[in-house]
């Protein structure tokens, strides 16, 4: 069995009276595309910062590729690339200068690799432009590039698509997917749950500093989410009386687990004279799972 890419055990962190991390245990395998989800303030960034050595935990242990992030910080930091949530940059330098400097901090001269990253992130035309002159989305790409200069086997992206247009978002995911296919472990936090659903093989959900769900994306969808039958009825009140939920657009939604239930439901609607005018099926999605997990936790 190979070493886990990330191992977090009994991690706690308190800010004054606030328990930001309340005992987190987590193991992420090499090569995974892992999603770290949770509402604002759940502790995602704190967990990532602890992993990167930016935050000192009160208790617990963290390892990256088997290297303790405190005792063996040099190896741990070499193995880790972090794209921070905040849009930070050094206004003194151009994109290429910045990437050279960043590689240098890791003791590397990586000009050919930097060209590849620039290309892959659509930054080639901006290579010699000063950071100050870049748009927000471009700055975000540079943050991704900076996290990759030392070719870390483990890459953590903290909300990389906040405030980013559709084109860049797709380009970014394509690039990150390729990194993942090449063997890099990817950890992603995002509030766009459909992104997490399509990209991540496994997901952990955090709430108030605790892991409240941890499973493969497929299992989570299956375990928690129900299908939905959306109906438009001539007599919506009849649908509601039969257990449906009216939404603000005039649709009545019925939740169900097994398709056999649909037959029964349609028969009852007909008997009651609800007058079915239109219907759609809603697949289970991560957003429903998320809402449900957060309510139960």
């Amino acid at each position, binding site marked *: 069995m190979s070493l886990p890419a990330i191992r977090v055990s009994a991690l706690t962190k308190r800010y004054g009276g606030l328990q930001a991390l309340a005992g987190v245990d987590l193991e992420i395998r090499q090569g995974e595309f892992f999603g770290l989800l949770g509402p604002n303030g759940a502790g995602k960034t704190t967990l990532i910062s602890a992993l*990167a*050595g*930016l*935050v*000192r935990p009160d208790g617990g242990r963290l390892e990256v590729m088997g290297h303790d992030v405190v005792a063996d*910080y*040099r*190896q741990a*930091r*070499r193995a*880790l690339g*972090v794209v*921070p949530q*905040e849009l*930070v*940059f*050094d*206004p*003194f*330098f151009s994109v290429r200068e910045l990437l050279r*400097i*960043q590689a*240098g*901090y*890791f*003791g*590397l*001269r*990586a000009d050919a*690799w930097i060209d*590849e*990253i620039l290309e*892959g992130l659509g930054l080639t035309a901006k290579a010699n432009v000063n950071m100050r002159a870049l748009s927000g989305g471009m700055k975000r790409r540079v943050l991704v590039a*900076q996290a*990759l200069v*030392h*070719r870390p*086997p483990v890459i953590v992206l903290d909300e990389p698509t906040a405030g980013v247009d559709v084109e860049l978002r797709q380009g970014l995911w394509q690039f990150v997917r*390729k*990194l993942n296919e*090449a*063997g*890099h472990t990817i950890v992603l936090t995002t509030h766009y749950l459909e992104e997490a659903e399509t990209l991540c093989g496994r997901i952990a959900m955090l709430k108030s500093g605790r892991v409240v769900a941890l499973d493969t994306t497929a299992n989570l969808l299956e375990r928690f989410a129900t299908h939905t039958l959306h109906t438009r009825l001539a007599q919506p009140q009849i649908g509601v009386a039969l257990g449906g939920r009216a939404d603000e657009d005039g649709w009545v939604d019925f939740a169900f687990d097994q398709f056999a239930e649909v037959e029964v439901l349609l028969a009852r609607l007909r008997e009651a004279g609800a007058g079915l005018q239109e219907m759609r099926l809603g697949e289970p999605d991560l957003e429903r799972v998320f809402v449900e997990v957060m309510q139960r936790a």
Partner: protein
Amino acid sequence: MPELLPPPRESALTGFRTLLHKEVLRFWKVGFQTVLAPVLNAMLFLLIFSHVLDRHVTVYGEVSYGSFLVPGLVMMSLLQNAFANSSSSLIQSKITGNIIFMLLPPLSYREFYAAYVLASVLRGLLVGVGVLLVAWPLVDLPFVHPLWILVFALLGGAILGSLGVIAGIWADKFDQLAGFQNFLILPLTMLSGVFYSIHSLPALWQRISHANPFFYMIDGFRYGFFGHSDVSPWLSLAVVGVSFVLLTALTLALLARGYKLRT
């Protein structure tokens, strides 16, 4: 496309050298403000004070006031700019948040310290040499003991570079840093005997001046030029050397704890 190749070759010192290089680039790119402006400032002091006082005042018997003033001005500019370099760089990085790019890589806190302090020393020396070059045609400077000059310049720059690191990581806002500068660094340098020999002061002020470590930096530095000083250069060296060691130890201890950097 990226593959999991072994990373390119690396050498142990490259991280430190890169941080030093970045810190030097940072002030060099705006050299107009960081080097030329302080040289101009010092020249204004020299022109005004030496014009007013040159004919009336001599120091150590035969040294004209203008000559006496120049080493003090050089050292004062060196010290203030060494402090300004590390402190302003760090607080800017903290406030804009880009300090994380130096905290994420495998740089040790000693490398971090050495790079910031060395860059400060370099800027201080550059400004000091600038002031010296411009003053050269205007006054007589004998350069009696060049080695003393160099030693005090290096130690003084390193002490203020260290103080700048402490101030830069302690301050959360620019006005806190300005407070540090205005209420500590500026008075200590101004009252250190840049503009006068402390022998011309009343006894009480002489004693107070002796408690100011900046006085020893300037007095020892001046000794290198004239072979005369208010106190023995060895005493100055001892005070300045001990200050340097203590301050370095304090700064390293703060950095090792991650004080205000790794929360």
